[in-house]
C-alpha cells in the first residue's frame, strides 16, 4: 500500500494567484460581457473581497453550512464498490465518496447559493435570478431565496424542465418562478443566455447567482471559493482516516463547479492526481456529446474565454448529454487552465456508461447518484485496471439521483 507524503512538492506554475487581477487563469477567463454589466461585475468583485474577510459574514456562512446544509458531508468508504474493482490478490483502488449528495437539497450546489445570497443581501439586492440545467442549482437558489425572503426567478430550458420535472416542482413549491427557455435546444446554455439577458435588464436591482465556475470574472473565482469547503473537508477527513493525502480525486465536469470545489484545495499538492470526467453523450465521434475539454477549441461563451464546443465559423454548437447538468458546450476557465498546465486530466464517458454506473452504485452501495455524478463513477471502469497497488481515490459524489429516476427508467429495463 502506498502512503502519500503530506508535504507539498515543488511549487508549480499553478501556485500563482488564480485568477490574476484581470480575472484570468492564464489565457482563460476574463470579462466578455456587454458594457451594462461591467459595473455590476466590479461591484460584485469588491463585495466578495470585502465580505469574505469579515468575521460576521464568515460566521453566518459557516453556521448555515453546518446547521442548514448539514456540513461537513461525510467521506464514506465505498466498501463493496472497492471490492468490485479489487484484484484477485486483494489489492485495488480504495474508493471513497465525498457525500455532497447528503447536503440539504441533495447536491453540492447549495454551498455556492448560500455564499452568494449572503453577498446579495449585503449588496442590497432584493431580486435573485439563476440559470439551471439539472435543476439542482435552481433548487439550491430557490431554497436560499425562500430562506432569506427574496424574489427568485429561475431560467430553465424547456427540454430540461421535462427531464427534471421533479426539480421544477420543488422550485415552484418554494416560491420561485421558473421561466421556460425555448431557444436553441432548450438546455443549460440557452437558460444561461436568458439569465444574462435578464441581468443586463435588471442589473440595478438584481443579483445573478451563477451556478457554476463559468461566466465572467469574478464568478469562476467566487463560485470556486464557495465550494472549496468540499476540498478542505476532504483534506481533513483523509488526514483523520489515514493520516495522509488522497492519491486521486475524481469528479464529473459540466461547467465544473463540484470538480473545482474538490480540486482547488489540492492543486498545489503535486502528488494528487486530479481527474475530471465529461459527458461523452452518444460517443465523441457522434457529435452528440458535451465533452468540451476533450473536443473543444478555445472560444468565448457567457463572458469567459475557455474551451468551447463550436463549429468552423465560431458558432456555438448544441451539446448533448443524458445528464442535464453536464449538457453544456462550455466549461469553467480554470479547468481549461488546469488542462493546459497538465495539472488535471479530463476524460469522457458515454450516456450508456453513466447509466451503467448509476445502476452499479445503486446496487453495490445503496446510493442512487445523480446522472452527472454517475459520469465520474463510470470512469472507474477505465481507471481502476490502469492503477497499481491500492491508491486512495476520492470521488465527489456531487448529487443524489432522485431527480433522474424518470430519465433512467426510460433506459433501464428493471
Amino acid at each position: 500500500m502506498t502512503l502519500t507524503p503530506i508535504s507539498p512538492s515543488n511549487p508549480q506554475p499553478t501556485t500563482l494567484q488564480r485568477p490574476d487581477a484581470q480575472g484570468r487563469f492564464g489565457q482563460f477567463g476574463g470579462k466578455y460581457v456587454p458594457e451594462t454589466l461591467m459595473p455590476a461585475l466590479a461591484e460584485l468583485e469588491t463585495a466578495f473581497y470585502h465580505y469574505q474577510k469579515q468575521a460576521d459574514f464568515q460566521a453566518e456562512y459557516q453556521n448555515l453550512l453546518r446547521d442548514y446544509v448539514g456540513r461537513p458531508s461525510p467521506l464514506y468508504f465505498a466498501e463493496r464498490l472497492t471490492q468490485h474493482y479489487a484484484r484477485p490478490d486483494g489489492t485495488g483502488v480504495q474508493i471513497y465518496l465525498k457525500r455532497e449528495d447528503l447536503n440539504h437539497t441533495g447536491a453540492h450546489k447549495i454551498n455556492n447559493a448560500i455564499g452568494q445570497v449572503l453577498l446579495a443581501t449585503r449588496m442590497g439586492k432584493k431580486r435573485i435570478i439563476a440559470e439551471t440545467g439539472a435543476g439542482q442549482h435552481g433548487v439550491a437558489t430557490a431554497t436560499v431565496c425562500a430562506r432569506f425572503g427574496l424574489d427568485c426567478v429561475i431560467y430553465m430550458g424547456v427540454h430540461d424542465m421535462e427531464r427534471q420535472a421533479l426539480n421544477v416542482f420543488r422550485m415552484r413549491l418554494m416560491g420561485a418562478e421558473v421561466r421556460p427557455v425555448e431557444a436553441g435546444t432548450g438546455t443549460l446554455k440557452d437558460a444561461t443566455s436568458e439569465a444574462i439577458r435578464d441581468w443586463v435588464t435588471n442589473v440595478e436591482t438584481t443579483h445573478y447567482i451563477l451556478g457554476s465556475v463559468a461566466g465572467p470574472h469574478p464568478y469562476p473565482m467566487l463560485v470556486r471559493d464557495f465550494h472549496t469547503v468540499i476540498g478542505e473537508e476532504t483534506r481533513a477527513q483523509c488526514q483523520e482516516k489515514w493520516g495522509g493525502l488522497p492519491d486521486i480525486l475524481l469528479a464529473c465536469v459540466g461547467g465544473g463547479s463540484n470538480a473545482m470545489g474538490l480540486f482547488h484545495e489540492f492543486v498545489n499538492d503535486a502528488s494528487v492526481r486530479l481527474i475530471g470526467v465529461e459527458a461523452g453523450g452518444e460517443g465523441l465521434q457522434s457529435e452528440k456529446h458535451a465533452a468540451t475539454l476533450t473536443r473543444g477549441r478555445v472560444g468565448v461563451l457567457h463572458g469567459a474565454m475557455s474551451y468551447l464546443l463550436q463549429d468552423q465559423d465560431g458558432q456555438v454548437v448544441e451539446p448533448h448529454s443524458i445528464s442535464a447538468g453536464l449538457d453544456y458546450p462550455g466549461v469553467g476557465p480554470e479547468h481549461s487552465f488546469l488542462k493546459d498546465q497538465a495539472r488535471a486530466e479530463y476524460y469522457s464517458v458515454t450516456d450508456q456508461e453513466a447509466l451503467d454506473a448509476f445502476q452499479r452504485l445503486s446496487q453495490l452501495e445503496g446510493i442512487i447518484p445523480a446522472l452527472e455524478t454517475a459520469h465520474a463513477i463510470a470512469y472507474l471502469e477505465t481507471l481502476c485496471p490502469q492503477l497499481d497497488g491500492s491508491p486512495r481515490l476520492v470521488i465527489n459524489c456531487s448529487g443524489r439521483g432522485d431527480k433522474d429516476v424518470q430519465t433512467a427508467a426510460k433506459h433501464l429495463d428493471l
Partner: protein
Amino acid sequence: MMGSASTMSVSAKIKAVRDRGDCALIPFITAGDPDLETTAKALTVLDRNGADLIELGVPYSDPLADGPVIQAAATRALERGTRLEDVLAMLKSVSPTLSTPIILFTYYNPILNRGIPTFLQEVVEVGVKGLVVPDLPLEEMDVLLPQAEAAGIEVTLLVAPTTPKDRLMAIAQRCQGFIYLVSVTGVTGMRSKIESRVQDLLLELQQVTDKPIGVGFGISEPGQARQIMEWGADGVIVGSAFVKRLAEGETHQGLEAIEGFCRSLKAAIAE
C-alpha cells in the same frame, strides 16, 4: 455615386453630418435574414433612403446583448446556413455601390475563431469601415482595437446607463468612429418609451468628450428618434424595428416597408 463616398470613415461621415447641423440615421439589419440576396438589396434601399451609416449584424448563435427580435433574425439566418464568409462575399460586391459606410456588428467569438489579423484583413477588403463588438468591453479591447486601428477600421465602444463617470471618460478616450450610447439598461428591442435619463447621459458624455455620440437600443419610432436628436445626439441607431419590418411578409414587402420606414425616420430627425 459609385464608390465616391465609400472611402469615407465612420467618424468622418458622422462628423460631416454633424457639421451640417444634422443627426445621422444609423439603421441596423441582420445579415442573412431572410437571405443574403435580400440583405444586399436592403443595404441599397437604406443607402438610397436616408441612412448615413449602416450597421450590419453578423448572425451569432448566442447573442447576449440582443432581445427577441434580433435573436430570432440571427437564428433564422443561421438556420439558412448564413456564414461569415458569405456575408463578407456579399459585402464585397455591394459595398462599392453604396455611399454609406458599413459598420459590422459582431460578437467576439466569430472574430476570435477566424483569427483577429485574418478577420481584419478580410473586412477591410470588402469595404467595412467600422466594428461594434458588444461583448468586448474596454478591459478586453486591447486584443482588437490597436490592430483594427492599424488596419483602418474604427472600433466603436459602448457606454451604458450603468457606466460610472470615470469609466465613461476612459471609454470615450479609446472609442473610435462614434460613441455608442446604450439608451436602456437592457438588451436590444423595441420599447414604447424612451427613458428620460438618456438626456442626462448625453449631457454627461458631452462633458467628457467631443466625439460624436450615437444613441441606440430601444428606439423604434420616428418620434423617439426625434426626441433623441433634440436631446443632442449626433446619431440615432434603430435596429429591431428595421429587422422586424424586413422579416414580415414577402421579400419585396419587407424591402418596401424598410424603405418607407427609413424615410420617415430621416424626415423626423432632419432639421
